[in-house]
């Protein structure tokens, strides 16, 4: 754990903005560059920074190991579930046009859901891998 006050205060200041930027990249992905993959990696990067400066315990208080590990399959399930939802409502797998009244809105919703699935899996995997490396190194 680092005791340097500049690093600690600086990190504290910058962490919420990293998370905000990740959310921006995620939800603005429809209009600008970005999407689930990038946002997931940025979120994981936030946890990594937190763990480097404040120690693993502080990071695991915010992102508990059990939660992070459950996020890995959860994201895939959200993605595949969106596909299956289209299947149940009488369309092809991963055809989003039936998810809302208007086909184009259905597509918008479907893209949002699968991007959320990607975000959950990517951030979960990256953070869990980081935890695994750190714990192995002790």
């Amino acid at each position, binding site marked *: 754990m680092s005791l340097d006050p500049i690093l600690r205060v600086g990190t504290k200041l910058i962490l919420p903005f990293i998370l905000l930027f990740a959310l921006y990249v995620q939800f603005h992905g*429809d209009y600008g560059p970005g999407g689930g993959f990038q946002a997931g990696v940025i979120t994981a990067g936030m946890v990594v920074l937190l763990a480097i400066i404040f120690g693993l315990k502080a990071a695991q208080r915010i992102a508990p190991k059990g939660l992070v590990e459950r996020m890995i*399959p959860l994201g895939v399930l959200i993605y595949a579930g969106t596909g299956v939802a289209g299947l149940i409502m009488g369309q092809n797998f991963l055809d989003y046009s039936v998810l809302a009244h208007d086909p184009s*809105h259905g*597509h*918008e919703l479907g893209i949002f859901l699968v991007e959320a699935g990607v975000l959950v899996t*990517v951030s979960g995997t990256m953070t*869990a*891998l980081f935890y695994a*490396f750190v714990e192995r190194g002790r």
Partner: protein
Amino acid sequence: MTLLAVVTVAIIYQRSLFGVVILASMYSFLMATLLVVLDAVDVAMTEASVGAGVSTVFLLAALHLIKTTEMGPIRRHTVPLLVAIGTGAVLVWGTNLLPPFGSPDGVIHGHVAPRYIADTIRETNVPNVVTSVLADYRGYDTLGETTVIFTAGIGVMLLLRGGRRRGRAAEEKASK
């Protein structure tokens, strides 16, 4: 581009793995800049965050677990050098058949791309074509990608943990 070449040569001659990781991170960052110049902002963002960011962290974490100096060459590398030069020459020769860079009549621009660009707002309400292709038109591929990340993550975690448990069991056996 010149900087990319310089960094690549530096990576080859660097013996300390720590230096290699830092140089690889630099390489990714330069690559991201190059992709921004080519107007591929989505890919540039991925390259900057994954290549320069998280993979550097993982490589450093892996270095923490192993020793950090590369071993000297065991064999002479004339044959691999010849193979590499041959492959490179064939690839350069192959680029002759590609359409000129940025040409609109390339084969890939005549297949489904015009339809995606023309219909994406009407069909999906999403102005960023990259997102709509990634998550909608080619949704199967992205599902596959997500599954790959899932599988890879699970695999690496099993390797890291399983090894430790076996080590501990061996220690217990030895102490008995």
